[in-house]
């Protein structure tokens, strides 16, 4: 059986060899008869197999040896942690020896204070101190925990309800620091891909919030509604608009800009917002308790129902003369922040005595609408007093509690010199005239490019003579310091 199989195999092999070799059995290569081409084929086949078995070409990988790594680490020289200290960094602010009220003591001398945003003059208000006092006795100073973990004290809830009730919104949420309010609220509502259109003059807290949100950010010219309209039009008109419709879109503005004192034209913004379907985030830090007949802020001032503004934030370290901040809006807006806003979730809550101060401050505000009329009057007096000032010009709106004077010829003066000149004015005013005003300073991180200036926070606590004296002194000093730059 096996032999017959072998026979068949052998016969087949012979036949195949003969058939394959037949055509070239007499072939001669380089003078040698090779007796068929099988030999060549086998050789080629072997070469192919050899090539296949080789890896395809890669540049040789030579990872760094430990020794080389050691050397690299050894050689690396870091920059110093901070740049070397220059003279301009050595500025020391004046030190107050009493409360920062409309009049305060610096270097043992009583001065008129225009450096505190104590718009309603509530610093030192008896009722405010009383409520703080009893809160301190009952709750101690700190809350010793974030809101989630037993840091929610009944005054926080009362304060949130009081603010919402005052503004006519469904709910509000307290933050423990004014600066953190915006930079926590924005990333809670805007994520990567969302679109934010923002005024170029917004303060650093907002800038940081925008950065942290990783959204697409478009700046429009400071308080320029035409530019805003153009940008909104551009964003919504082109081919991508279908995609844009699915994204969250926001306009971020300040009611009264800290960097210029200008008031945002909210009626115009609301018109644009409704036309292009953007939501509005409004920072009322410098307008809450100031603008509007009863101090309810820019919405009241412009006669816009508060529901039309989706998210309102404000720092309480200004008109309310306490600390912290709040955000208000629909219940959805506030509830979402309670778990998604990093500055709320991951930070200890506002000290209870400051929350109770905020409640009392709103009470005082509601009981004394005269404070706002007084403030308005004071702003008007200062404006009138400052009219015709040499070398400086008004950057702020006439009704803004921040009177912001920028250099008239800012373009022709180098920015370092600008600050020097302005600081010189402030120093002289304090030293020679006992008027405490500040030259606005800018952090190197601040992207706002609005010009620097002299900033005066007007308070309802200033008397007419304070204001007139300040205006007259400022005029004199400005003329003296800026005589070369007029």
């Amino acid at each position, binding site marked *: 059986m096996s032999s017959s199989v072998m026979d068949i195999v052998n016969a087949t092999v012979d036949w195949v060899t003969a058939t394959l070799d037949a055509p070239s059995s007499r072939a001669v290569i380089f003078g040698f008869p090779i007796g068929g081409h099988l030999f060549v084929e086998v050789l080629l086949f072997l070469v192919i197999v050899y090539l296949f078995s080789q890896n395809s070409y890669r540049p040789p990988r030579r990872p760094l040896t430990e020794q080389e*790594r050691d050397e690299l*680490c050894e050689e690396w020289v*870091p920059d110093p*942690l*901070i740049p070397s200290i220059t003279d*301009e960094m050595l500025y020391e*602010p*004046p030190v*107050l*020896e*009493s*409360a*920062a009220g409309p009049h305060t003591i610096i270097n043992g001398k009583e001065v008129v204070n225009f*450096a505190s945003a*104590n718009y309603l003059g509530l610093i030192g208000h008896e009722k405010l*101190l009383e409520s*703080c006092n009893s809160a*301190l*006795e*009952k709750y*101690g*100073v*700190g*809350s*010793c*925990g974030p809101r*989630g*973990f*037993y*840091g*929610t*004290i*009944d005054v926080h*809830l009362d304060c949130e309800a009081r603010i919402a009730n005052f503004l006519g919104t469904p709910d509000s949420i307290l933050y423990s*620091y*004014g*600066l*953190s309010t915006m*930079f926590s609220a924005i990333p809670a509502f805007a*994520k990567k891909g969302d679109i934010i259109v923002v005024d170029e003059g917004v303060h*650093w807290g907002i800038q*940081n919030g925008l950065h942290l949100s990783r959204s697409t950010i478009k700046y429009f010219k400071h308080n320029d509604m035409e530019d805003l309209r153009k940008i909104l039009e551009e964003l919504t008109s082109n081919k991508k608009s279908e995609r844009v419709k699915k994204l*969250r*879109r926001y306009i971020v503005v300040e009611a009264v800009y800290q960097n210029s004192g200008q008031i945002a034209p909210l009626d115009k913004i609301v018109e644009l917002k409704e036309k292009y379907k953007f*939501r509005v985030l409004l920072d009322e830090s410098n307008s809450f308790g100031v603008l509007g007949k009863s101090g309810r802020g820019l919405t009241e001032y412009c006669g816009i129902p508060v529901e039309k503004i989706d998210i309102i934030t404000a720092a309480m*370290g200004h008109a309310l003369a306490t600390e912290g901040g709040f955000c208000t809006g629909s219940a959805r*807006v506030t509830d*979402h922040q309670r778990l998604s806003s*990093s500055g709320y979730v*991951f930070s*200890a809550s506002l*000290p209870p*005595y400051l929350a109770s*101060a905020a409640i009392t401050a709103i009470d005082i505000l509601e009981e004394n609408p005269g404070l706002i009329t007084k403030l308005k009057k004071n702003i008007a007096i200062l404006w009138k007093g400052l009219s015709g000032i040499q070398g400086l010009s008004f950057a702020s709106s006439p009704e803004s509690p921040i009177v912001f004077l920028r250099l008239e010829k800012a373009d022709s003066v180098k920015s370092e010199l600008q600050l020097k000149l302005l600081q010189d004015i402030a120093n002289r005013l304090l030293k020679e005239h006992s008027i*405490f005003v*500040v030259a606005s*300073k*800018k*952090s190197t*991180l601040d992207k706002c490019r609005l010009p620097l200036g002299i900033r005066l926070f007007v308070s309802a606590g200033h008397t007419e003579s304070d204001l007139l004296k300040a205006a007259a002194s400022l005029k004199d000093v400005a003329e003296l310091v800026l005589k070369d730059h007029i």
Partner: protein
Amino acid sequence: MIAIPYLTALTTYFSYGLLFVFGQVRDFFRKIIDWWSASNLQGYAPICLGLEDFYIRRLYLRIQDCFNRPIASAPDAWFDVVERYSNDYNKTLKLTKKTSRCLNLGSYNYLGFAASDEYCTPRAIETLKKYSPSTCSSRVDGGTTNLHNELEECVANFVGKPAAIVFGMGYVTNSAILPVLMGKGGLIVSDSLNHNSIVNGARGSGARVCVFQHNTPAHLEEVLREKIAEGQPRTRRPWKKIIVIVEGIYSMEGELCKLPEIIAICKKYKAYTYLDEAHSIGAVGKTGRGVCELLGVDTADVDIMMGTFTKSFGSCGGYIAGSKELIQYLKYTCPAHLYATSISPPAAQQIICAIKVLLGEDGSNRGAQKLARIRENSNFFRSELQKMGFEVLGDNDSPVMPIMLYNPAKIPAFSRECLKQNVAVVTVAFPATPLLLARARICISASHTREDLIKALEVFGRVGDLVGIKYFPAQPKKAEAEEERLLKVD
């Protein structure tokens, strides 16, 4: 590292899976219902997109009564928790007028300065009368009073650095300082469990951020070597500077930082060190000077020391301490110094007084007593919990001790059962911890008495059996009896 038992991991995953599926089913029906009712969006995109708040709507709301519990008193050793009720399956909670007196194991009141204090409170009130609650101005404008300068001097002296700068909020301290120090071309090497404020600060700085395994010096070294050798990505330029950020006590783990090893590595690789002592300053160390003192590290070796006043000092705000030049530079350009309202004067006074008490400058030895008590309390409570078979994380001497719960259903169960028996605990779940590693966190205070702690242990013992979180076998009775005998002798 936490070694989660295999079975527990499985059941935890199963529970979350179940919750997720149910949530999805409910969302589905919600969508159908919403489809019928008219949309009120009017062309706006929804303010919270799809899954963004799924966790809140479908998981968190079910157990929201365990969080944000309002209190109606100072967060002292015992406090009044306001009772709440819900008529709509926990969707909204309504407050009642009733309160229940509970043992507080949740607040960061390590030294007992949260309640009014015989030394601090009268002085804080005096300051309130003198300086009012706020300056309404930033530090660089008109917000610097004598008190602020005194505070900075006092803090610098206390932590052992040449100078310090203070801010009105701890969170802002981290998130506004890091962008000043680091920028493009810099590298931030951060512990994987660092606090959110550090994460946000690092993100805001524009520097590259890389993470090393939690509290693992060996991995830190590996990362540093590799990153220095590699240089910046793409351009391969050498890094401008590298900063390593660690915390003194990790608030969710209760672990002490392995500072000596980490400092040694940073020195070797010329990286700057940033130590966040939010939970450790005041709470640990012989005189309350934090982890540096506890672990014997020279403060000169730590470039930037950060801490908060919210915890041990019972106030608010935060500080950065460092070289004179560093502080000078921060005062020149840090946005929180330039733009934010300065720290409230009574809060500043509270900190000064608390530090004085700690240093014995108030003319009593209350500070030393407080420090001794928190150490004793912490170590007693930790060892007792371990004996009972709980899985407790963290190191000795640390007043923070997490008890592992794992399963999502055990979070509300533990919290509610404890509250029923008048012990208020904090439970922590995602997003503050990884999904699998839900836990209860105990913060011990110097104001707890031994009886308080024993009561808490009894309650935990009962609730632990009920909920089933004693993942380890309890220690044999005999040893316990022995221990008890020793305690009595104490």
